[in-house]
């Protein structure tokens, strides 16, 4: 992984050599294994596996006589290695392999509320010890989270029942009750989510665990409809779609951080220090709260409707502070 991707052809051949060197110890550890099962395990077709075995059959120790070559016994669809010619163990882990396994295990061990953490930690210790010098992967992981809340939800999800949740939706700034049929729990970008069929939205939704304010386990089983499939989240949790409203803002230097936190469709230099950024939002009400909250260095360019809402809200809020009778500070003091 630290090298540029090799050409597909050379990758395939290196893969084959690696597979062949693995194959002998793999079969050695499983005498009489069915060829179909081995192929499934190794992720190759049965035909490919048979070709690999034929090739190994003509390899062996110098001398290359009948007693020197790798030998195997076939019994119907089963195979047993009867002579390994010295490749009785797989190769050591490469630094990249050790890193990939060790970091992923550390990530799981650090995930709040994960099941069987103790087994994950034991596995991690054993892999680290087998990797020897490579185990000191210079990577540390910390994923703080509400372990108790995640564990409670995981138990509820594993129970296989529908859940009634009280959920805060930031896009509309409202807390609603809804019944969900959970599909899975996952952790993306340091946050825990329940992915579920939402009966209220009649769609698959991700629910952020830190926004689930209450959970009740219902008597009925969780039955998501057949079209409810887990979503592909490899590009992140929020994938802006072109039918969502697009807003354009002029932002000052101090507000450029939003380009790191929100997927922006366009970022351009404006006049002076200003940048002009465009992003998709799920809801214009959210955009209004967002823009007002960002502060004075942000101006709405489009849509005009949003600019007007921001102006009207700011003016109305100021008016409330300006009216002594309606001044809550005065009211609070005089009580």
């Amino acid at each position: 992984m630290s090298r540029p991707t090799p050409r597909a052809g050379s990758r395939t051949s290196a893969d084959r050599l690696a597979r062949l060197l693995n194959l002998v110890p793999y079969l050695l550890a499983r005498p009489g294994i069915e060829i179909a099962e081995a192929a499934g395990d190794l992720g190759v077709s049965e035909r490919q596996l048979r070709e690999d075995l034929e090739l190994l059959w003509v390899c062996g120790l110098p001398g290359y006589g009948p007693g020197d070559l790798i030998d195997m016994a076939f019994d119907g669809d089963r195979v047993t290695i009867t002579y390994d010619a010295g490749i009785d163990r797989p190769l050591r882990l490469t630094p990249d392999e050790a890193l990939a396994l060790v970091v992923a295990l550390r990530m799981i061990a650090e995930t709040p509320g994960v099941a069987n953490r103790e087994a994950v930690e034991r596995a991690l210790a054993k892999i680290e010890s087998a990797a020897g010098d490579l185990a000191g992967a210079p990577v540390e992981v910390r994923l703080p989270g509400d372990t108790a809340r995640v564990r409670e939800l995981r138990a509820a999800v594993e129970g296989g029942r529908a859940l009634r949740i009280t959920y805060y939706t930031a896009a509309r700034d409202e807390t609603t009750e809804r019944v969900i049929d959970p599909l899975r729990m996952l952790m993306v970008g340091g946050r825990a989510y329940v992915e579920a069929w939402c009966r209220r939205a009649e769609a698959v939704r991700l629910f952020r665990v830190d926004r689930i304010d209450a959970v009740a386990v219902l008597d009925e089983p969780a039955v998501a409809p057949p079209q409810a499939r887990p979503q592909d989240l490899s590009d992140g949790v929020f994938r802006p779609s072109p039918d969502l409203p697009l807003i354009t803002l002029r932002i000052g230097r101090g507000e450029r951080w939003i380009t790191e936190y929100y997927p922006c469709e366009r970022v351009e230099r404006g006049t002076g220090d200003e940048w002009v950024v465009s992003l998709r939002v799920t809801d214009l009400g959210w955009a209004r709260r967002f823009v007002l909250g960002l502060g004075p260095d942000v101006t709405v360019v489009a849509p005009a409707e949003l600019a007007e809402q921001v102006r009207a809200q700011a003016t109305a809020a100021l008016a409330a502070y300006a009216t002594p009778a309606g001044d809550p500070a005065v009211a609070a003091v005089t009580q």
Partner: protein
Amino acid sequence: MSRTRTERLVNLVICLLSTRRFLTAAQIAATVPGYEHDPDDAKDHEAFQRKFERDKAELRELGVPLETGTASVFDAEPGYRIAHREYALPDIPLEPDEAAAVGIAARLWQHAGLAAAASSGLAKLRAAGVDVDPQATLGLEPMVTVDPAFAPLTAAARDRREVSFDYRVPDRDEPTTRRLQPWGVVCWRGRWYVVGHDLDRGATRCFRLSRVVGAVRPTGAPGAYRPPADVDLISHVARWSGPVERTGRATVLVTPGRVAGLRRWAVENASRPDGDLLVLPYADADYLAGQLVGYGPDVRVVDPPEVREAVIQRLKEIAARHDELAVAR
């Protein structure tokens, strides 16, 4: 690689594993099928040498520990062998639940290169006799995503090699080139950072991997420095972007039935004729002001004055900027 080449390489590995003496290229050519050539024919010999070099490179690429040495003090020519204890994966006696965890770990990577490394690592464990239950789940699985700078920076930290890279901070107009002795890479709250000694600042610094622009360039020799003993990488990042104590208390009056977001973190909520009075814990008055302004006229600050003033100031500036806009239209 043709079948003959694969066959030749498998035989080469077996041959070098079986020998305790270092074998010279000539001895290997005389032994392993596929290297037959006429050593007296310069062209033929050169072709053999090229083939043998390619094969050695291929084995090293795969991680085969090819040892070089001479069989005796009288030999001028180097020879080759593979020590079995260096080659072989040590025994890893994984319990079924441990093997299941490794199986899950191997499929978490969203990054193609690391996903391939994880699955070839898992294939070796399987070859060592470990059985992995593909159905196992831990009830909650992290999706492991990394920035492109992850691989080169972890490699540099492992090799203790200085690097330089271009780094873009949003409030600066242009990326700057930074030089670093990386100590390690940290995942904190779902984001990746590198921690190390910044050679230009002469101090410990953290860099966010998502802000690295373009390639990470190794600039020095491996083993060029030593990270401080017992360095706690996490603490450097956590100190930099860690959680804050909310010791302040602000009192705000909000419209009934609205402002759900603030109600969720209010420590007190009292209903009054003119609205609901919430008490909000906070750490930074200006940050809180931003949150409150977001709700427009649905929130009015009662106390403390510093928050109230900050809110009014922000509202005035926002109104002024958007008023100009309305006039301009």
